[in-house]
């Protein structure tokens, strides 16, 4: 099989399937000694201007419709439940600070993570446990999945929007937080368990204070 035929075969494999392929899976399905990496790069180049793109996320490859066509594409859209503001923040923290423990997420947000937040992200297949931190209790660390990268059209975690600037500004470093904040967090957690927070919310909801500068 010459290079052109190998390219056709690779194209058929990737184009025909709904599932993304890892390079390892492609190697198993293509003739031995195929230059998978070179062919993938060439194929991506060939589709760069077309209505369908060859995209990479993590270790996987798949054809996807070009993002700029989105507004014009009258295709069946998947209905998604809207993520809460808190869940979005937790997702962003996991993506940008990974691997990150629950305690570290709470330190950054300075509030307790309510039960069900990680649950929702896990259910969406966007986060996964990455390992354990060498700390007392060996807490699990969290990171994002390849499904997350695919969903947001990202090649890798390194291509998250603005991650380089944040790194340069030192905002992704782990620094000792304020003691005061962990005290606030613990308190918030107590409140959550006692369900008193809900009570206060109801009392306050009608009374707002105008803030002047």
């Amino acid at each position, binding site marked *: 099989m010459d290079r052109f035929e190998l390219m056709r075969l690779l194209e058929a494999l990737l184009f025909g399937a709904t599932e993304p392929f890892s390079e390892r899976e492609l190697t198993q399905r293509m003739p031995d000694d195929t230059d998978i990496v070179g062919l993938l790069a060439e194929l991506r180049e060939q589709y760069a201007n077309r209505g369908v793109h060859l995209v990479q996320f993590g270790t996987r490859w798949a054809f996807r*419709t070009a993002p700029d066509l989105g507004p014009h594409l009258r295709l069946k859209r*998947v209905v998604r439940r809207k993520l809460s503001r808190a869940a979005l923040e937790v997702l962003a923290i996991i993506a940008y600070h990974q691997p990150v423990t629950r305690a570290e997420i709470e330190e950054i947000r300075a*509030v307790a993570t309510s039960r069900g937040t990680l649950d929702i992200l*896990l259910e969406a297949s966007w986060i996964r446990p990455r390992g354990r931190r060498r700390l007392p209790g060996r807490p699990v660390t969290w990171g994002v999945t390849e499904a997350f990268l695919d969903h947001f059209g990202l090649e890798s975690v390194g291509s998250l929007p603005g991650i380089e600037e944040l790194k340069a500004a030192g905002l992704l470093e782990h620094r000792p937080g304020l003691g005061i904040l962990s005290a606030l967090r613990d308190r918030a957690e107590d409140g959550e368990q006692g369900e008193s927070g809900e009570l206060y919310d109801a009392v306050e909801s009608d009374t707002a204070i105008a803030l002047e500068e």
Partner: protein
Amino acid sequence: MAEHSTSDGETGEPFEATRPDYRAAQDDSLVLDLDGFEGPIDVLLTLARKHKVDITKISILALANQYLDFIARARGLRLEIAADYLVMAAWLAYLKSRLLLPSSDDDDEPTGAELAARLAFQLQRLESMREAAGKLMRRAQLGQDFFARGKPDPVAVDTTTVFNATLYDLLSVYGTIRQRQQSSVLHIEPLTLYSMDEALARLNSLLGKTPDWTVLEKFLPAATSDTLLMRSAIATTFAASLELTRQGKLQISQSGTFAPIYLRRHQDEPRDG
């Protein structure tokens, strides 16, 4: 042209609903309603954003003053304020004093400037994550703005079975198993009760030795520390005594409600042997 196919337009939320709903803080008539905030840091961040667009140039001292002023007014209005808001107020008052007073050299505590820098970092870091979340959700998303192959090619040689199980399924099932384990241990407990058969056998064997009225408690098995077992023994022994009375082997006597219950062998019954 960004129109949904009719099939999901009816049931689903509008596509735009996936955009984050961050509070717009530029409005001059900002109303501070504690209900909408996620704790004091959230309030501080909103104040900071209102104060200056560039959060890196924020004056921590001015921010502390605004926050303290807000808490003071809220208390003036006798609003219920959650404890963590007050803790933050106390800490900011402390920070203010450290910023205003000259620090002594032999002090081990971090200086006011250091504390202020830490708070500024905390605010910037959280703000950066909120912006990141917004940027993420404004990206084109799979199934919304770009699409996978709609249907796999019907020409297929290599069929692989993929089981539909996610990590979420696995973890939630494991959690359920562990809980069920707890209740399955508890299901074994009824086995430690004193059975009706045991009570009947015991009562029958003791009956020959008791021609005179004897209080029910004397027929109970040896006392154990297991109170539930003892209670079941009382109940089954009483039930067994009713059964033997019905058979004509036993007589029962009780002088009044809650009075002791006495048992004796039926007087007309001939002795064995």
